[in-house]
């Protein structure tokens, strides 16, 4: 036999499992013994995960304050259309201890950070601190590449130009006196954004790098003055700037403003009355946007979002129901066939 094969004609196809399509293979089939238990198991697992998610989400505390001021009774109503610097304050009370760490978010709605042209209107090279692009920003930044006198804008682009510039302060009313709650502005951006994606040019002092450039038109102060107190929070690596530059996926979004991690508030905000003071700069009235401040803590699964838990429970229950239906159908038809 072996000999014969050696004498085989070259025209004879090779006898391998591959050429003869006899490759060993696993042939799974949707048999009842697999499908029905699988549905039961998935259903059970989903309900379990769903309940856990739901509880986790329910336990998260959330304090939301809309300060758009479109209602004439609202303290910020006056700032709505003012062009001057305008400050307003809102009070709210926390009934129980707001467990820490507490995160301080600002939120915008109907704001299209995900618009393609808006999102593309930036220059990554410039933000990476490449001085060549300070002088000659990418044309993707249009119409915020050059100002009217053809001086390059740094940071260029609509995204940077529209940076959120309301500022907040929070005070705790303790025994009738306002006690400022210290807000931590560090560690609110992604590590990669802070350390890799955004860089200041290696020029000291930083201001020299910006020679011959202009600040974005909407900005009250240039980039190198964003935080004059801290070199590591200034320029392009200013954390507020970084948070803003990470554009949102959806038109309603919230962004981290500060963390409350200091002093007496390490364990959270104690019950009591609080005052939120807002320096109202950012116009949203024109496009029907809303602004809000959100205080929230987090759980293992992130921020408050009931959807995921509910969805898991619903899908899990549907799996269980489906498995029962399949079992009935299977029993009826399988046994009918056996007869």
């Amino acid at each position, binding site marked *: 036999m072996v000999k014969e094969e050696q004498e085989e004609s070259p*025209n*004879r*196809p*090779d006898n391998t499992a591959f*050429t*003869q*399509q006899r490759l*060993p*293979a*696993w*042939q*799974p*089939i949707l*048999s*009842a013994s697999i*499908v029905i238990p699988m549905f039961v198991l998935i259903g059970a697992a989903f309900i379990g995960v769903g309940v856990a*998610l739901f509880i986790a989400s329910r336990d998260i505390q959330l304090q939301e304050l809309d300060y758009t001021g479109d209602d004439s009774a609202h303290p910020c109503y006056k700032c709505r259309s003012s062009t001057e610097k305008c400050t307003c304050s809102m009070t709210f009370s926390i009934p129980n201890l707001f467990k820490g760490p507490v*995160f301080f978010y600002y939120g915008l709605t*109907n704001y*299209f950070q*995900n*618009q*393609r*042209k*808006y999102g593309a*209107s930036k220059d*990554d*090279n410039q933000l990476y601190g*490449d001085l060549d692009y300070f002088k000659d920003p990418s*044309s993707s930044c*249009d*119409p915020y590449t050059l100002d009217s006198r053809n001086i390059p804008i740094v940071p260029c682009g*609509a995204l940077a130009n529209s940076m959120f510039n309301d500022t907040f302060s929070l005070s705790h009313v303790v025994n009738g006196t306002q006690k400022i709650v210290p807000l931590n502005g560090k560690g609110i*951006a*992604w*590590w*990669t954004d802070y350390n890799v*994606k955004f860089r200041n040019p290696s020029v000291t002092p930083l201001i020299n790098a910006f020679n011959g450039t202009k600040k974005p038109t909407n900005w009250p102060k240039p980039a190198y003055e964003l935080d004059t107190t801290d070199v590591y929070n200034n320029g392009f690596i200013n954390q507020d700037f970084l948070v803003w530059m*990470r554009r*949102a*996926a*959806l038109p*309603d979004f919230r*962004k*981290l403003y500060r*963390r409350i991690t200091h002093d007496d508030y390490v364990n959270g905000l104690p019950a009591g009355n609080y005052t939120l003071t807002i320096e109202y700069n950012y*116009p949203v009235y*024109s*496009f029907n946007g809303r602004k809000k401040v959100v205080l929230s803590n*987090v759980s293992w699964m*992130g921020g*408050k*979002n009931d*959807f*995921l838990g509910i*969805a*898991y429970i619903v899908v899990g229950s549907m799996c269980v129901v489906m498995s029962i239906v*399949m079992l009935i*159908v299977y029993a009826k*038809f399988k046994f009918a066939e056996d007869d």
Partner: protein
Amino acid sequence: ANDRAFNQTWQYAKNAIKTSKYNLFSFLPLNLFEQFSRLANAYFLFLLILELIPQISAVPWFTTAVPLIVVLSISGVKDANDDINRHKQDKQVNNHKVKVLIHGEEEKWMNIQVGDIIKVESNQFADLLLLSSSEPLNLIYVETAELDGETNLKVKQALTVTGEMGDNIDDLSAFRGEVRCEPPNNHLDKFKGTLTVDEQQHGLDNDKILLRGCTVRNTEWCFGLVIFAGLDTKLMQNSGRTTFKRTSIDQLMNLLVLCIFGFLATICAIMTVGHAIWEVNEGSTFTAFLPRQSGVDIPLSSFYTFWSYVIVLNTLVPSSLYVSVEMIRLGNSFFIDWDRKMYYPKKDTPAQARTTTLNEELGQIKYIFSDKTGTLTQNIMTFNKCSINGRNYGRNLTPDDNECPLQNMKRVDFTWNQLADPKFVFHDYSLLESVKEGNPEAQAFFRLLALCHTVMSEEKKEGELNYQAQSPDEGALVTAARNFGFVFRSRTPETITVMEMGRKVTYELLAVLDFNNVRKRMSVIVRDPEGKMTLYCKGADTIIYERLHPSCSKLKDVTSTHLNEYAGDGLRTLALAYKDLEESYMERWLQRHQEATTAIEGREDRLDVLYEDIETHLMLLGATAVEDKLQDGVPHTIEQLAKADIKIWVLTGDKQETAENIGYSCNILREEMKEIFVVTANTADKVKEELQNARRKMCPGSAEKPKVIKARAGLFWLQKTQTVQDEKVNGEYGLIINGHSLAYALQEDLELELLRTACMCKTVICCRVTPLQKAQVVELVKKYKQAITLAIGDGANDVSMIKAAHVGVGISGQEGMQAVLSSDFSFAQFRYLQRLLLAHGRWSYIRMCKFLQYFFYKNFSYTLLHFWYGFFCGFSAQTVYDSWFITLYNMVYTATSVLALGLFDQDVNDRWSFRYPQLYSPGQLNMFFSKRTFVQCLIVTTYTSLVLFFIPWAAMQDSVRGDGKDVADYQSFSMLTQTSLMLVVSAQMFLDTHYWTAINQFFLLGSIAAYLAITFTFYSNGLFFMFTSSFPFIGSARNSLNQPNVWLTMFLTCLLCILPTVAYRFLHMLLRPTITDKVGNQNQKPFYCIDPAPAPYRPPPRRVSTRRSSYAFSHSQGYGDLVTSRKFLRLKRRPSLFGRKDSPLVENQPQRYRTITEETKESQT
């Protein structure tokens, strides 16, 4: 002639052939041009240009450029490879050495020119004027199977003037002459011209022309003058342009692609309107943050948006679709080439997929049109049984009279006879014993076979006999006689020399009473050395029986039962008889014969009377049964194909009886059929009547007027289709129609009648059909049935049919290559058709359907997300995914696993598909991929894309990371959706794949691994350092994929997409099982896990009817005149050659060439 310098002054076609398309320099521009003239590639080029316009470009240019370049280079490499092969083939043919007599040197084939004289040693030459040959009388024998499909030998004869030169090279080289002839044309049977030698004109006709494509037989050498070369040769002029065949799935795919384009335009229009509305409502108020570019107002920006969405959504029809389809077909074609079970060791021919674009059509065949000779049968006749003096020989009996299967029988040993043909096989020892014992009847029987024929023998070496028979039947009979000790050795016009049991006996041949269609018998009158004169006669039993001596009546009855038995086995029978003649009678008869042959008027009639007179009172010797050997496994294959609901029509040039007989023996016609209608009428009305009668008998309730459903289909619905519905018939019927009737039936007013009747029958046999009619029948079915047809044949006469059918199959390994060359698939044996269709075809079809479904699924799911996202991003043509993901999704992440699906998937293995041929039927009904399944696929993908978008959308609403940082940002959202998409399409792939080979597993897991690896690499710091602006997604993988809620969202999305499909499939299997499922349910275990026992094949029961095909000679008059012709021997003295012009050879030449065009005229009249 034979003067190159002179000949070159005319511009004759060069003999060099060129089939290659490119050379080294023209390759790139030409190939690129060709590729971009394909619609799909041009479309992507257009997209690429769009992407370069900054106002429109929604994605970076490389998202289209990279796939396009990959696609172009893959097809470019393939084209280049094909072209290199063509170059090689051309070179091989062109450099073929031929002896040219200019300087007596060898010359390359490509350099041969018109006017050269060449020595023909091989079978590849141009159209030649025959000058001289090695054979007597300057004859040469040629086989023209490649030209017209006729396998019998034909004779060509050179002019005497040139023939005189023989093989004298000096003479030939010095030969000067002038040939004037008609310009190149495609008539194979006509040639007109003159040769002027030494101022003397000689007429040239077809008998002196050797056409390219002929095979020279029994001729050692011959010399010829090249008349037409290269493209001017009749063969080349005759080869019709090959039409490019497309599969029905291809057409459907094109249609769907077109629909998808429409769909794309609709979506883009919706997005444009949406954009305009958004711009009015939101965008105009949002200008503080996103100012409009100067000069871009709402209509213009909407216009831009339209094109931007064309770019973003173009992945609905990805560029890789056509390339992937081609690759899958190529792969499946390789599997056909590689299949050992379709390799024929005897001829060393593997199966070959010559066209790599028709694979899936093999899984949808509804009608098979088969040739008979060489396809169903081997075209080998074997002497199988005989009845001598009332004794039946050759049955498969053991010594104690029990039937015994043939395989267990021992072959009769013929080694005692040195002149025996070693290939001859016989199993009945008793016959040999009878002959050896000296049984006079048995000896007379074989003596008759050795004497009464027109075979010519050739003995190149002592003892090595070679018979040249005009029909294979005769050859078989003479060979049988040879092996049983009556060796026909040689013949002269007056004598026949036979070795009788080792003793040399020379008979004097007094007369040959030749065969013709009316006489259906042939006789010889010989005088043995003792002076006894005998007439030996063989012929159709009915004819012989009329002429028997009354004393034979008892023997006649016995022989009759034997004949019936033979006929029942599908053997061709002949009855043999002899008559001793008296000297006085013979003398008178010979004298009359002499008078008759020389008579000028009424020669034929007078001879007929004479023959009738002498062929009476014959003594019956017995009967022979010759088997027209079927190829191995033909009945079984046909039974299997019939079970697979494939209708088989046999279209043959053979006579009705032969065809019918073969029909029975290969199981196409069956005894249990209710009735077999035979249509043989000779007028249109009669044909119509017969067809209608048959139809009414089969289906009395059928409407008189056929229902023709007219519809439009194809691209832009330009194609009109007419469909005749199948009609239900109870019971099985057969239809046999002959060529004359078919010619009428194929006329326009009758073709529907023919089609309806024929399609009601289980079996249709058309006999005596011309090549053109074969094609017409195929076209008829194609036109009205909208079914996939397959034509299978071996000869050049099948070429038209092979080209006309959707799929053409050639039987290779035979001598003629014409059918194979024009076929799409070729293999050596008919029985491989079963494997080609039931295994390869079914697989290819299922694979292609699965592939297309999955491919559309994955791309729709992927692309529609952009549509949903549009509603949330201001219809700004923002892509959901990273542009690198868009670039690589079709090329890398999902390419390999879907290819593996299209190459390796098997729902059941080949053994099961043979066990249950019914598994083939879903393909015929187009069940796995049609417009319906496409719509289903569309619904599923819409659901999938909705889930894929809205679950992450809802889950990420206001969500943050565990450390409070952003996770609802655009980049994380992209990461989340694209990873979910990868999981979903992989899970779907998991569900769709039935046959998990290691390769599938590797590709699927590899795809996911590659996705993760590439994603992490592209989002890494390093690449960002190097190419800052190209990789803006830095860090998003790290920052989102470490979040539990991201993973939980992905699992939810994935399961929500997949579980409904699982549940649906499971319930569908229970509630409405498909054939595949049903087959599975017959077994307790999951059926594809165990191998089936091979289906026992029961040979069909022996027929009991007395249907008899009695005849075995060729169709036309035999060679009788030639063998008795005095001019048969090559005579040394010239003078005797004159007068050759009215040699009977010219008149009696067997079947002439008939061109297709002529047939048309005939069939139309």
